[in-house]
């Protein structure tokens, strides 16, 4: 139900409420916090990728100026692993034994009075290794293979028979490299023990989970732990776990009796906080001459660390991408001596879509059917597995509106047919369906006696705009002006929130915020239920509307009262109510819950002589359900698109196969898009509010990235006639 009077704050492209703070340098990120008396920690990391430590001499380091302690596996207490969550296990506890499982593994922590002293002392530690030959390649016969790690393998129809009878078949192998999340903010932890109470400033996307993890690992009640992350300098998935360096910082503070601060270095960011794992995908698609699909066979393998886990079912989404009678998806992993992968913006989807939508382009080319038309001929009007109608799906509108805006009809289908001087022009496109994800969430709303509102939840705003859109939702549901509403987050003492991840936070949190705010209205109406003079006496929620800090009768809108008047009359300083949200049940609602959909259209220009590839423009047409803030939602899409350009053309974490060492662990060597790499980005939002949630939202934090790599690869093929099935696409492959 909507209580709100026009004009609503929801949907309006208002400026970020934290914008002034961020542009003034006044937003405090985890590395910006200092406390009196703090010591500094620095990490020493393994220089071999496999084997064991046979000796570790810390005497010289311990005697160095300012050093308080040196922590190694020899003096680290046995620590339990953190609790598992619905997105996987906690990383293994650090420094528990002498074994080395990857290059860059933490082997010691120095705590000293200053950061410089701590770093200098790490260089005085002498570690002797008994090194063994690391397993670093998928095809190493020693590599352990894990089949169907997540129980998501799927099969329908009769794929083998269908492929045998197909008029046309395409079959190819696609590879994607390790990518590193590389948020600009270096991960930082500041741990302060006060007796058995722990306060931690930490780079996390999930304070509620970080609190639970630290409580379990250090055997204190959750109520004794507070995790703070009011601002996070990006994360893109790397803040979804409590990594070993966080545990070590808290441990160092406990062992020294001092507050301890640790800031990772940029090279350490490559081995300490996860990355997108490399993958190999085999796809076979069979179709009739008409373009009608008969079968899809999609199998993937990703890399994972020796003793950890990661969620990367690259092929799984191919089961629901198209109307196709026979589909098989298989996902597996191989264990390597690498630092553990983790979610990186659009995990699994970013890689899987590259393979599927590249293969689709190959099929279109083989059939002589326009790639867009081929997708429309196989459009999944209903959920291909459950057969249920979607809670919302405007992918067709994405295709149509995007093609119109892009000028897709001007595309000459023949490769190398479009040219501008020395530049070969290529048009490419890809379709995207992002998985639906929802988790329980709580929020708390307060309306004060002065008529202002304060709403909060232990969520994070990693740049997505959570502060802003939740202020908008709160303002509209309460009917209080935006500048009288404060939404706060980033504190585990607030009601528990899920992670900023999986494109699931906005839906879960907005619904909880709405529930809490409606609860306040309901309780305020309870207050006046006996007030003889109140025009709202006897009114239930459905009898009222809100606006301008007041509650009005729906049947007589000129009659009402302000929150301030009601609360003051009743001697209340405030009214506070908690709200909650929980994922719906698709079968109960008779709908297949939909995530966002999108279509990507890309123009590339390739220098005919030099092979230099330039993305000239990208049109993103997105069905994100109800858009809460046009400005911040657009930013999510253009930001994802830039991430996709990086995935397609620049990003590759290079590991030396012999030593297991990452060879390009700096911003000078690991290339991400710079301003000059990003030209014209156009974003269109289409579609309707989703039917499965009260506010009709669908997350848009990740879909912007998905499809970019395939659309660029397809455009490069159109420009040059060369099909690149391995990312990143670099100019040497086009010469």
């Amino acid at each position, binding site marked *: 139900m909507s209580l709100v009077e026009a004009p609503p704050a929801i949907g309006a492209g208002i400026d970020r409420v934290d914008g002034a703070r961020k542009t003034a340098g*006044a*937003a405090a990120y985890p590395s910006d916090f200092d406390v009196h008396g703090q010591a500094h920690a620095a990490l020493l990391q393994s220089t071999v990728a496999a084997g064991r430590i046979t000796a570790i001499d810390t005497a010289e380091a311990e005697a160095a100026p300012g050093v308080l302690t040196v922590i190694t596996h020899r003096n680290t207490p046995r620590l339990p692993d953190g609790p598992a969550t619905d997105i996987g296990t906690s990383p293994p506890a650090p420094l528990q034994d002498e074994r080395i499982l990857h290059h860059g593994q933490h082997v010691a922590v120095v705590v000293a009075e200053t950061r410089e002293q701590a770093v200098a002392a790490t260089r005085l530690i002498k570690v002797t290794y008994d090194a063994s030959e690391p397993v670093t390649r998928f095809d190493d016969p020693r590599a352990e293979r894990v089949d169907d790690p997540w129980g998501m393998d799927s099969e329908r129809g009769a794929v083998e028979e269908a492929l045998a009878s197909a008029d046309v078949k395409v079959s190819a192998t696609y590879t994607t490299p390790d990518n590193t999340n*590389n948020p*600009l903010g270096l991960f930082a932890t500041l741990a302060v023990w006060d007796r058995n109470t722990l306060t931690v400033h930490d780079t996390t996307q999930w304070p509620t989970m970080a609190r639970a993890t630290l409580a379990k690992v250090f055997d204190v009640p959750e109520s004794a732990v507070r995790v703070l992350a009011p*601002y996070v300098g990006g994360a893109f998935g790397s803040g979804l776990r409590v990594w070993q360096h966080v545990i070590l910082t808290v441990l160092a503070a406990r062992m020294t009796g001092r507050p301890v601060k640790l800031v990772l270095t940029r090279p350490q960011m490559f081995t300490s906080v996860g990355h997108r794992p490399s993958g190999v995908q085999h796809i076979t698609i069979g179709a009739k001459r008409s373009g009608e699909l008969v079968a899809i066979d999609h199998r993937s393998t990703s890399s994972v660390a020796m003793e950890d886990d990661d969620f990367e079912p690259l092929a799984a989404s191919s089961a629901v991408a198209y109307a196709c009678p026979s589909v098989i998806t298989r996902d597996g992993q191989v264990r390597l001596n690498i630092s553990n992968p983790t979610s990186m913006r659009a995990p699994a989807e970013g890689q899987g879509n590259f393979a599927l939508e590249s293969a689709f382009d190959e099929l279109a080319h083989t059939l002589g059917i326009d790639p867009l038309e081929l997708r429309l001929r196989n459009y999944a009007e209903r959920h291909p597995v459950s057969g249920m109608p979607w809670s919302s799906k405007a992918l067709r509108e994405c295709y149509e509106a995007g093609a119109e805006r892009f000028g897709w009809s001007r595309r000459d289908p023949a490769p190398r047919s479009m040219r501008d001087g020395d530049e070969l022009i290529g048009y490419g496109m890809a379709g995207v369906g992002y998985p639906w994800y929802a988790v329980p969430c709580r929020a708390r709303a307060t309306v004060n006696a002065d008529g202002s509102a304060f709403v909060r939840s232990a969520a994070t705003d990693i740049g997505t705009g959570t502060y802003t859109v939740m202020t908008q939702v709160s303002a509209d549901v309460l009917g209080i002006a935006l500048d009288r509403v404060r939404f706060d987050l980033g504190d585990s003492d607030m009601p528990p929130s899920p992670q900023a991840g999986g494109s699931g936070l906005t839906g879960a949190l907005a619904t909880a915020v709405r529930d809490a705010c409606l609860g306040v209205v309901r309780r305020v109406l309870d207050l006046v239920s006996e007030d003889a003079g109140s025009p709202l006496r006897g009114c239930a929620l459905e009898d009222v509307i809100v606006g301008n800090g007041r509650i009005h009768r729906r049947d007589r809108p000129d009659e009402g009262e302000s929150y301030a008047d009601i609360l003051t009359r009743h001697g209340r300083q405030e009214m506070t109510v908690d709200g909650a949200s929980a994922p719906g049940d698709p079968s109960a609602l008779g709908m297949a819950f939909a995530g966002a959909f999108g279509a990507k259209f890309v123009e590339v220009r390739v220098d005919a002589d030099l092979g*230099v590839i330039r993305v000239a423009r990208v049109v993103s047409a997105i069905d994100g359900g109800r858009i809460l803030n046009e400005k911040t939602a657009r930013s999510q899409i253009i930001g994802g698109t*830039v991430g996709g350009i990086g995935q397609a053309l620049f990003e590759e974490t290079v590991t030396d196969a012999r030593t297991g060492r990452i060879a390009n662990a700096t911003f000078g060597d690991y290339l991400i898009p710079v301003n*000059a*790499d990003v030209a014209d980005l156009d974003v269109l939002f289409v579609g309707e509010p989703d039917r499965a949630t009260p506010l009709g939202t669908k997350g848009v934090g990740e879909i912007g990235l998905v499809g970019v790599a395939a659309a660029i690869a397809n455009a490069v093929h159109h420009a040059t006639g060369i099909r690149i099935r391995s990312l990143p696409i670099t100019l040497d492959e086009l010469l």
Partner: protein
Amino acid sequence: MAKALSRPRRTQVVGDTPMELSVNGRPYKLYLDARVTLLDALRDHMGLTGTKKGCDQGACGACTVHVNGRRVLSCLTLAAQCDDQEVTTIEGLAGAEGPHPLQESFVRHDGFQCGFCTPGQIMSAVALIQEGRAGSDDDVREYMSGNLCRCGAYANIVAAIREVASADGASAGRTSADGASAGSASAARAPRGGTDASL
């Protein structure tokens, strides 16, 4: 040319190299290790954490500040080099009348997301306009390519800078990058232009 920096705002003694810096118009007298960078001096010894450390290797631009009006990477600049120099950080950009126009246009155009690179982006942008290098979108893209933004707000950053540059008119004199092929993929592999590595 030594300035009279009387009544230092704060004296910090953690080393034996004396230095007097004017930061955002305020005098600081510091005794630091001679090896302390300007970035660490600002963040650790002056309490000015608006300037960010994104790599400490001169590759990301998050630590960009002005020294005597020129943009520098403070992680590659020694604090001792700034003895008697005028340093301006993001905290010193606003005037008595309110935020700098670029601070406002970055908000209006949503020229950031997580906000971590933003102080460096804005400090570069202020200098860019003063240098007359913001005359076209392609110029801005090229000369802002030393400031990485992992959230991918580049398009909005360009719009924010162009709005102020156009209103300012100061960049009217120059209309194209110095022979650089703006927008080319090769720009990512070339030395990232625009910001001096040191004084």
